[in-house]
């Protein structure tokens, strides 16, 4: 749903109603979870569930106001806002970048930090418009090495080494 809405529709009635409903649904789920909190002796009154419940109820109340406001606004006049004129959104590039970002983070424990970072940087550069292969490779290599020097060597960050053959490779490199 979120990807179906162009920028500039932040204040539109429909997006407000949808976001209000999502927040209410999520809040009710978490409110249900607060019932599972153990009651600690000495803290029966105003226990651990008190504060989250208070905040959740406030959030639900505000979401209801947001929805009502949006419904009333929608009844008064149909929103005519159709995004910023001339603005084009590259949703495919966004989805690809998001996907690669998730893959990158998930791959770090398996491929090791250096290998996964080198590969991810090449793909990110390509997705963001770089078309020069040598430029992408040099940039990715340079950034990966620089990160290793600063974090791995200078401040002794234990960079993930990966598993299997990648672990052996990482052990060779650092």
């Amino acid at each position, binding site marked *: 749903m979120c990807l179906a*809405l162009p920028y500039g529709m932040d204040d539109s009635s429909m997006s407000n109603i949808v976001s209000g409903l999502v927040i209410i649904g999520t809040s009710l789920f978490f409110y249900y979870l607060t019932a599972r909190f153990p009651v600690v002796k000495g803290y029966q009154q105003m226990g*651990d569930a008190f504060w989250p419940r208070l905040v959740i109820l406030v959030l639900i109340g505000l979401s209801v106001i947001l929805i009502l406001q949006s419904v009333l606004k929608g009844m008064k006049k149909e929103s005519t806002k159709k995004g910023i004129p001339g603005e084009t959104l*590259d949703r495919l590039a966004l989805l690809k*970048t998001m996907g690669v970002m998730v893959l990158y983070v998930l791959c770090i424990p398996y491929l090791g930090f250096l290998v996964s970072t080198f590969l991810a940087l090449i793909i*990110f550069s390509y997705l963001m418009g*770089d078309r020069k292969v040598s430029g992408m490779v040099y940039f990715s290599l340079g950034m990966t090495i620089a990160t290793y020097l600063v974090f791995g060597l200078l401040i002794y960050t*234990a960079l993930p080494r990966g598993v299997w053959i990648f672990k052996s490779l990482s052990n060779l490199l650092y």
Partner: protein
Amino acid sequence: MVDLFLYGFQNVLQPVNILAMIVGMLIGLLIGILPGLGGTMAVALIIPFTFNMEPITGILIMLSLYCTATYAGSITAILFKIPGEAPAIMTILDGHEMAKKGQAGKALGTAIFASTLGGIISTILLAAVSIPLSTVAIEFGDAEYFAMAVMGLSVCSGIGGKSVLKNIMAAAMGLFLATFGTSSISGTQRFTFGYSGLLMGITFIPAVIGLFAISEVFEQVEKGLKEGRREGYKKQEKVRIGMPSWKEIKYLKWTFLRSGLIGTIIGILPGVGATTAAFFGYSEAVRWSKHPEKFGTGIIEGIAAPEAANNAATGGAMVPLLTLGIPGSAVTAVMIGAFMIHGLRPGPMMMLQQPKLVYSIFAGFFFSNLLIILAGIIGIKFVARLMDFPYYKVGPAILLFAVIGSYAMNNSMSDVYVTLAFGFFGYVMKRYGFGLAPLILGMILGDLAEVSLRRAMLLSNFDPTILITRPISAGFLIFSALSLCYPLIQKYLLKNKGKEALASS
């Protein structure tokens, strides 16, 4: 007292001590620029290197590092919308907007000037009124702390997105997210879903990196990158530091003074540090401004206020440390360890028995803040070159810094997952018009609000009137109510004025 000050300055200006402060400044600069690396970690890492030094030399390295790291976060905040340090979060709002308009140099210059001045104001206050101030702050009970948290939250309606309602909702979301993890009062696990990475709650810095850095890259990519350039950016021919003019300094004088004072007082309060000081500095600048609607659009007040406040908080945090031996922040908690390694025990006895050392620390603090100017010049020359890079170089670099910065916090992939999750969350929040700043405000103040409220209630036998019968607490709460309603009242008044103007015309 003058003699002691003169001795302090003389001691600090010894070549070895100047060198120590420069080394501290350079490390602080590096730490401050790199997101996810905090001053606390840097101070902890530097302690072993100070073993063989004179106590004052070792302490000066740490002071200089602490001051510079607090400032340096603003460089990346302005240029890349990444807060290198958490206290620079508020600087993003106007600093980055100025950079987008091609005024990065002016924004950076204002940040340097404000940080230095804020730090110097706090040093003067630290030296002059350290004992009385800490006595007042130490008198605060739980009711006052709760009211103070509410007062901090009350500014949420005026910052962030355009909608007051959505800003308040975002702050409530932040308060809710702050409840994740182990309860500070009873030790119960809340919303951890059996995942050990959530036991300590949502780690703040990784969340902030995700919210501000990753969501920004997503947004830029979605908006489309023409020839790899960011949408809306003016090419920065060469970023030159544009220090504020005399006219601008005169115009900002109350902002500097107010933020310097707020930052010092907040710095004194235990557990409330430079980040909160920056929030209060910014929100008070909005409150007192003749044109609050311009905040967030790229104005120098929006940089001067948080930067003066966050650096002033560093001096404030030293007050309870030096006078009472109580750390006012995570960095000063680590510093206590460093003092002890050198055979010193901060507290009232040190103030009485070693005044020469104490006044050398005051003088060291003064010079550490002056060194911020040098740090700014070096840091900007180094970082600003990256500004003109095409986005296919900057975007991937931001994503890499976000990942490695959050990982390096605790050498933990859990923090990277938090960063990623908050990157997506921040993107959705922005898409739907919810402000990120109120969300962060809620996350910062959530624990303070909950713990102090529950403790106040427990101690008063669940009598809620304790919040309004204590004068300071009542004053804070009344102020909060007015502050929360202010944008609505202002809107109503403007509407009525508009109608009157129409009718009369």
